[in-house]
């Protein structure tokens, strides 16, 4: 029950979905199953929310390090839940959009969620610089190739490339940095991406087979209760 039923479910579902692609009357099954996944995922949201609350309540009650911040998390969570799930502060009817302008939900979204998310994302500008400072060093042949390719593209993506090599005559125009940058993107970059993709395609196919056949079953855990 604990192990064989799940393995059988995986096998049947996986095999049916593979064959459904080739059988027109079953065409829509894949579509249905994706929808099923989304519905299950909503239940998972609730499981996750419950876990989040538990983690922070435990932290709070045991006065673990930084426990006052757990209050912030819990308050934020409950406030957003009230605004979102229970539509408190939403002037519209029950079928009004959740993201109605002026609703509490949208306000929190605009002035808390968005600035936090975008700034976190914007940190990348700094990290990309510090990573290139550290990583692009001519340590060996591979690293040097990496460095040179990156440098050419960096130059080529700005007006600088044109300024530096704009004088190169038309019959040698591939040596103009912007053209060279495009050529690198279109040829070696494309070749490398494609080789990686072919590998990934096969990797996914083989991994899926191992899962469907029940050879790979770590995710199910052991035979215990």
């Amino acid at each position, binding site marked *: 029950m604990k192990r064989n039923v799940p393995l059988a479910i995986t096998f049947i579902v996986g095999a049916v979905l593979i064959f459904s692609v080739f059988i027109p009357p079953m065409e829509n099954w894949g579509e249905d199953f994706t929808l099923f996944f989304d519905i299950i995922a909503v*239940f998972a949201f*609730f499981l996750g*929310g419950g876990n989040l609350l538990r983690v922070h309540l435990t932290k709070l009650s045991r006065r673990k390090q930084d426990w006052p911040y757990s209050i912030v998390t819990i308050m934020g969570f409950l406030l957003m839940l009230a605004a979102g799930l229970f539509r408190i502060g939403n002037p519209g009817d029950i079928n009004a959009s959740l993201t109605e302008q002026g609703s509490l939900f949208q306000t929190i979204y605009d002035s808390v969620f968005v600035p936090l998310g975008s700034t976190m994302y914007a940190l990348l500008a700094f990290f990309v610089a510090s990573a290139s400072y550290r990583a692009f060093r001519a340590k060996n042949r591979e690293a040097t190739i990496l460095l040179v390719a990156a440098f050419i593209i960096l130059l080529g993506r700005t007006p600088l490339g044109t300024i530096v090599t704009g004088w190169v005559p038309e019959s040698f125009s591939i040596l103009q940095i912007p053209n060279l940058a495009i050529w690198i993107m279109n040829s070696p970059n494309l070749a490398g991406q494609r*080789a990686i993709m072919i590998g990934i395609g096969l990797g996914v196919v083989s991994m899926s087979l191992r899962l469907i056949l029940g050879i790979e079953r770590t995710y199910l855990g052991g035979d215990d209760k």
Partner: protein
Amino acid sequence: MKKTTLIIMAGVTVLFLLSWIIKALALEGMQEDYIKKAFLVTFSAFLTLSILSFLYRDNPFYKFAEHLFVGVSAAFWMSMGFWSTIVGNLIPRLSQNLSVFFKVHYIPGDFNFRFYIPVILGLLLLMRLSRNYGWISRWSLAFIVGTTAGLNFIRYLRSDFIKQISATFVPLLVDWQGTGHFFSNLDLSASGQLVMMLANWTIFLGVMSGIIYFFFSKEHTGMFGRASRFGIWVLMITFGASFGYTVMGRISLLVGRITFLFRDWLGFNI
């Protein structure tokens, strides 16, 4: 708490209030709810700066912003999931009464009962919370893993494997009008024959050697090793190029945030 921490905290509070007041005065007469709007802009700016302060080092402002973000976003996705998937897609297919209650269009259908499957699996998943019957959630997991494996098998095979193979069917000679023509028109212009041929050669050899690099069942020695080494170089160009290309996008993100701080908060005309 240390004395300096307290002083910084107090300073930030004063600045926050000052910004609120000044912003409110600036907005007065231009917008309704100007006090609320001024607060929201100030608060957004405060959160933005709190996150940026992490670059210096971990600090209480970052901790505050981080914890707030976690709480708010978890509830955000819960709400979105509930209203768009459960109310938007599930209820219209399962229950006419609930559809009426939530004021959504009921979609009748012969096989709608199949939508009980995910509901049951979702409930089984929640059995996780029980100590003794937690194992039953594996059934839902197994269903999801089966779906993932089944759907991705064909998709990746088609788009990442088969289609990528046919995309590599490139001729190694382009616009070929004889050797004489080739040598008499030899140049290095970006749209010239030689450069285009070079591109096709690179794609062909690059893909082949790249695949060789990923070969698992043969030791990378001899000719094979040399090919695989060439493959690594191609991959390195790919990674370098992608990295260089990406820098631009990352800078744009920062531009967006800085614009917010200077224009929306500080009121610069940019």
